[in-house]
């Protein structure tokens, strides 16, 4: 995951003010964000393949699940359609962090199978990857060997495209601020 991010300031204020003068300018700005997020969403969905990552991973939830296997109870089936449909974009602000920031755009991976595929084997800071010779350990190793380290879907896209997306949105925001300033100048004149 990226360590540094650009914090955009004044999105809400700019749009609220700009709405009074030029609704089309607001729409143009929103379109930039939505397009960037849609592109990221599309890329994330393309990562999901139709076949399960491993042969033992059922395509549907088990009819008579056992507790101890990946086909057992609580282990979600690999339904590519559902996983893709539950990869979505969001512009909800969510909770404000301690550093006074919140989301202005995010990708969500909401399905259970998609979440497992996304983060299985993620190592907490300061810990080591498991070397256990158990089925769980084997599952993580195989998944890592085939699809790379954890953060395999939405986070992979975000890490890859964030800089580009941030730059595009920041440029659009600057443009919106400029348009707002022009309107204010005209109003003052």
């Amino acid at each position: 995951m990226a360590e540094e991010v650009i914090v955009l300031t004044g999105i809400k204020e700019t749009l609220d003010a700009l709405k009074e003068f030029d609704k089309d300018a607001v729409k143009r700005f929103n379109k930039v964000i939505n397009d960037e997020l849609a592109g990221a969403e599309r890329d994330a969905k393309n990562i999901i393949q139709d076949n399960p990552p491993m042969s033992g991973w059922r395509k549907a939830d088990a009819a008579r699940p056992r507790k101890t296997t990946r086909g057992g109870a609580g282990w979600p089936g690999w339904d590519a359609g559902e996983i893709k449909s539950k990869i979505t974009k969001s512009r909800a602000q969510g909770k404000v962090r301690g550093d006074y920031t919140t989301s202005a755009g995010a990708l969500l991976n909401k399905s259970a199978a998609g979440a497992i595929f996304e983060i299985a084997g993620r190592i907490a800071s300061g810990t080591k990857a498991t070397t256990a010779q158990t089925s769980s350990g084997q599952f993580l190793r195989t998944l890592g060997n085939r699809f790379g380290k954890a953060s395999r879907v939405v986070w992979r896209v975000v890490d890859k495209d964030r800089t580009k997306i941030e730059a595009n949105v920041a440029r659009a925001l600057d443009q919106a601020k400029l348009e707002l300033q022009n309107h204010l100048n005209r109003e003052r004149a």
Partner: protein
Amino acid sequence: MAVGAVVARILTQYSDKGSKAAQKDINKLGRNIDAFAKKSARAFGVAAAASAFFAVKIGKDAVDAAIADQKSQVLLANSLRNTTGANDAVIASTETYITAMQKQFNVVDDELRPAMAALTAATGSVTAAQSLMQTALDVSANRTVDLGTAVNAIIAGTRGQYRALGKLVPGLDSATLATKDYGLILDKVGKLTAGSAAKRAQTLEYRLIGLKIAFGEILETLGYALLPVLDKFVTVVTKKILPALDAFVAVNKDKLAASFAIAAEFAVILLGAAVNFGNWIANNMGLVKGMALLIAGMFVVGRISAFIVMLGALTSAFAVLRTTAAGAAIATAFATGGVSVGTAVTALAGIAAIGLTTKNLFDMANGKSNTSSTGSGSTGKYNSISGVLGSTSPTSTTLDTTNAALDKFLAGLTGNTKALKVAKSMQDKINAEAVKQNLARQAKLSGSSTIAIGGGSKLYMAQSGVNVVVNNAGSVVTNENLVTSIVDGIEKVNRRGRYIGGRFGETVQL
């Protein structure tokens, strides 16, 4: 946003929600201080008095905080002695420990001390209590409950009652609780909640609490410095002032009651008059500021002692003023005035003089005689203001009549003030009074009550009619000095070629 989903934030925006809340708190604090300052200023009317009163407010808060802190410390020390037989060194080290915990976890010491006392009582050991205190703080932070609740649950555990702890820490499984091994249970609790208090201390909320605690500590430190002064004050009040007051009240209770009645009625009149007091204040700003400073000084040094002493001063002031012009009394107050309690009392006698002036003006406004005619003896039986004012008294007439009386009063007051200004400025009066005080002091030093220059009933003066002024302030220490100074002064006049009658030396009698 979806719950349980993997959320990858792409765009991050600044939100002023948290900073707005912090700013709101800071503004609120500022508004409270402003409001207090405004109220103080309104109460006294001048900024000097407001700042003095603000100093009193800080001093009062500091002393209150120190008293509360001292009480809390004494209770904990007593508890430690009773439960563990702790000596002074252990008690001191416990205080140090509590101070450290307060700073580290931003939890106020007034919460920590009762918790420590309870844990020590339950375990019988200061060391064990300190260990459990850390766990209690972590549980309190982790489950967002107050420290007392966490401590109670832990203490219940020491008695073999684990239910409260189980409910408080959900991660504590029933298997662990079933072992009834309290060491194991505490170990598990410790693992589940470790570091919570430290994490909580780093949040904005608790850092702000930390600031508040730090400010409270400063106040307590200031308060501890003031406590010995207060202690002395209490001793003086208990041993000297109260017995003296008892004796004073026993002897003067009737006069005192009458004085209170008069003072209260003056206060009512003055308060009513103050509503339309603008002109008078404008004409006498120096006087008002001076009085405000004196009153502020009294509040700072000790309003209670001043009030008690003032009772006696007021009584004598009323008696003196019966035979003295009110303006001269005010001048005396200022000529001898300062900001100490003693001189402030003198100045308050001046305030009493204003009260009498007010009464006089009412009398004049209603065609009655002046104050000297209302007195009934030099030792002082005070006439009630109601009796003096008759039907115009604001305590016994309708509002219209009162307003009319107030109008007359204000008119009289304004006229009187203007007349005073034309005749002599207040500063001149004060200077004159200071000279008079000096002469009185010289007379006292000379050992005789009066100094006559001349023979028989004749007093010798310069031909121009100017008095021979002998400025001896500060230089006269003996009778000889005084005589020499006077003779030198007369010689000086003679050398100017003005014969003042008779041979000097023969005419000077002491």
